[in-house]
């Protein structure tokens, strides 16, 4: 005979798993690599991560875009289901043109127009106001894409602190997440599974200039102090 109580627990556990799986699949479909197309060589340099915030509109960091004013492209997702093996030797890609329509250089946010649409509900933007310190957050992006590796990666980390950072006298809200980040992750989604909202976007790590560069790496960036801008600043740019 089945214990109804245990049956109930098993059932809710599998529901949760299914819900998580749907969410992860959603992020597979709505997270992208932003690149720059060299029209002569027809090669794409991958610049960083970006994600869909509404149909036809994506967001990333201004430093990911850099000083490119043309030939920006979004690389269409290679997998549409989280547990699919991603073939790292497959260098073919489908491109969608993108164009910068707005930037907030103080909060390091760039909004781009791109012909990308998602047929279901798009996960809303929130703020680090919605998240609690020590809450587990999910991070979705493309670590190492700037080095030529296009692998959609899901991570989780706790919110370690909420901070205000100043850029040229303007203060903005940031969340510090307890994880080490690598090149390519700028522009990654930071999602709160408990609030079901995108609460931030990964920008970089706290690192003062050490004056030393080891293969292009500042040794002081190798820490677990990843800084993410609060998503409310993305929302205000979409108004």
């Amino acid at each position: 005979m089945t214990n109804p109580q245990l049956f109930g627990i098993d059932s809710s556990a599998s529901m949760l798993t299914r819900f998580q799986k749907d969410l992860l699949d959603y992020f597979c479909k709505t997270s992208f690599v932003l690149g720059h197309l060299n029209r002569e060589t027809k090669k794409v340099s991958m610049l960083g991560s970006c994600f869909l915030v509404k149909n036809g509109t994506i967001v990333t960091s201004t430093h990911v875009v850099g000083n490119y004013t043309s030939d920006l492209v979004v690389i269409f997702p290679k997998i549409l289901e989280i547990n699919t093996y991603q073939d790292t030797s497959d260098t073919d890609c489908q491109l969608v043109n993108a164009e910068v329509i707005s930037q907030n250089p103080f909060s390091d946010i760039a909004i781009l127009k791109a012909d990308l649409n998602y047929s279901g509900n798009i996960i809303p933007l929130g703020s680090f106001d919605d998240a609690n310190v020590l809450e587990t957050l999910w991070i979705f992006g493309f670590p190492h894409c700037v080095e030529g590796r296009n692998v959609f990666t899901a991570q989780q980390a706790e919110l370690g602190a909420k901070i205000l950072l100043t850029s040229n006298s303007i203060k903005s809200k940031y969340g510090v997440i307890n994880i080490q980040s690598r090149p390519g992750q700028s522009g990654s989604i930071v999602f709160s599974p408990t609030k079901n909202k995108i609460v931030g976007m990964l920008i970089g790590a706290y690192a003062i200039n050490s004056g030393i560069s080891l293969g292009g790496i500042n040794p002081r960036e190798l820490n677990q102090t990843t800084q993410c801008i609060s998503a409310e600043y993305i929302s205000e740019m979409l108004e």
Partner: protein
Amino acid sequence: MLSQEFSDVISQLPKFQQRLVTELLQGKDDCLPAAELYFFASGPDNMQTFGGEPFIGKDLKEAKKALWPNFLKELTKLICEDPEYAENREELFKEAGVLKTIIISQVSALMGNKFGLPAACIAPAIVIVVCTAIKLGKNTYCSTYAV
């Protein structure tokens, strides 16, 4: 408190840029340094970023710093009715010679094209320079800053 003439110009910006410009101008007698702050802004200090072309962050900051004097010089020529911009005057101002009727989107497009910068990103710095000229009075601004 911003004057009505300032508000007429600032209201041409999207709301988030209006907020940033207002914060930058808060409590400042001299507006021009705020335009520089906007022009050079590139995220907080002590941030190791993880995207873009290698080292582009540092290059971008340096490139923008190098561009600023020329950018300001060109914008001042436009504000001060230099003959170089005579042909564009009708598309840049709703009312010829009246600074508060400047059409920021048109000026940004023209300057962006000239300096290879996205128009939407330089509009706030342009607004602050125009506000400086409005505050000082066009004649005083032009006699002080036009070369």
